């Protein structure tokens, strides 16, 4: 089963680096991209062209984004009964302590600083894969209540 990862990121360079690194480290990852907070929320709520979007197993969220920023997206995810269990990892170039504290207060599952160098960036993606997508037990979402959709009851025969 593919692992669905939603990357919320506006920098084309970082998008490309992340895509390439995931392709190298884990072919089972399906990386979905949202370029700003509005698009991320539409994806998570399955609105508009995201009607058939999968529920992400993991969200990688930049903080400084156009339209709606990452802090607001994080607050939305962690406030929504259907979405709050999705591990949400902050991935940002900000090293400001106030951003770190604020993110953990808003219940980010973890905070990572984007390194500047290509190799370090690749290593970071690899360790996200090794830890979050390999070691960690992620919540299964078969029975999760999905926003805006009736709950599916699986029939056991």
């Amino acid at each position, binding site marked *: 089963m593919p692992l669905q990862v939603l990357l919320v990121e506006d920098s084309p360079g970082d998008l490309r680096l992340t895509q390439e690194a995931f392709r190298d480290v884990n072919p089972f990852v399906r990386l979905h991209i949202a370029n700003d907070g509005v698009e991320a929320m539409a994806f998570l709520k399955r609105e508009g062209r995201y009607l058939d979007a999968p529920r992400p197993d993991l969200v990688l969220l930049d903080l400084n984004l156009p339209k709606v920023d990452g802090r607001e997206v994080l607050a939305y995810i962690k406030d929504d009964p259907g979405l*709050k*269990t999705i*591990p949400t990892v902050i991935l940002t170039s900000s*090293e400001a*302590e106030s951003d*770190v*504290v604020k993110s*953990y*207060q808003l*219940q980010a*599952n*973890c*905070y*990572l*600083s984007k390194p500047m160098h290509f190799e370090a960036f690749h290593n*970071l993606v690899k*360790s996200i894969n*090794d*830890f*979050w997508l390999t*070691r*960690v*037990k*992620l*919540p*299964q979402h078969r029975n*999760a209540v999905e926003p805006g959709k009736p709950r599916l009851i699986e029939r056991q025969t």
Partner: protein
Amino acid sequence: MQDKNPPLQVLLVEDSPGDIRLTLETFRDTNPAIRLHVANDGVEALAFLRQEGVHVSAPRPDLILLDLNMPKMDGREALAQIKQDEGLKTIPTVILTTSEAEADVVRSYQLKANCYLNKPVQLDAFENLVKSINDFWLNMAKLPPQQN
């Protein structure tokens, strides 16, 4: 000897003596900068975190490793109390348990666990897990500062 980085304070909440010993030994081998503190149940963990009684001088942990099934107060209750406490909620809290029950996984994330890990039964796998907790949480992740 120069030591510009303060030690990393880790609170292990665990009742199994074997698992405590294994975790202590593996951390000692992996990262000498770690100070591992042990609480044997949820009541002791909260006393440590709130600096009550004998824990009056306890440091604020940088990371909490929390078992689920424990005497007195179990890990679910301790997790709920940590994440409801304004002063403690930002401390990354990692569930480290033998339970593979989906209900425990979902419940833990609902209670705002930062992540959920299964304790492996084999010695090698256990050591590898402790190493990867060290590599990820104590090297890669940016943790909230000690004072906030």
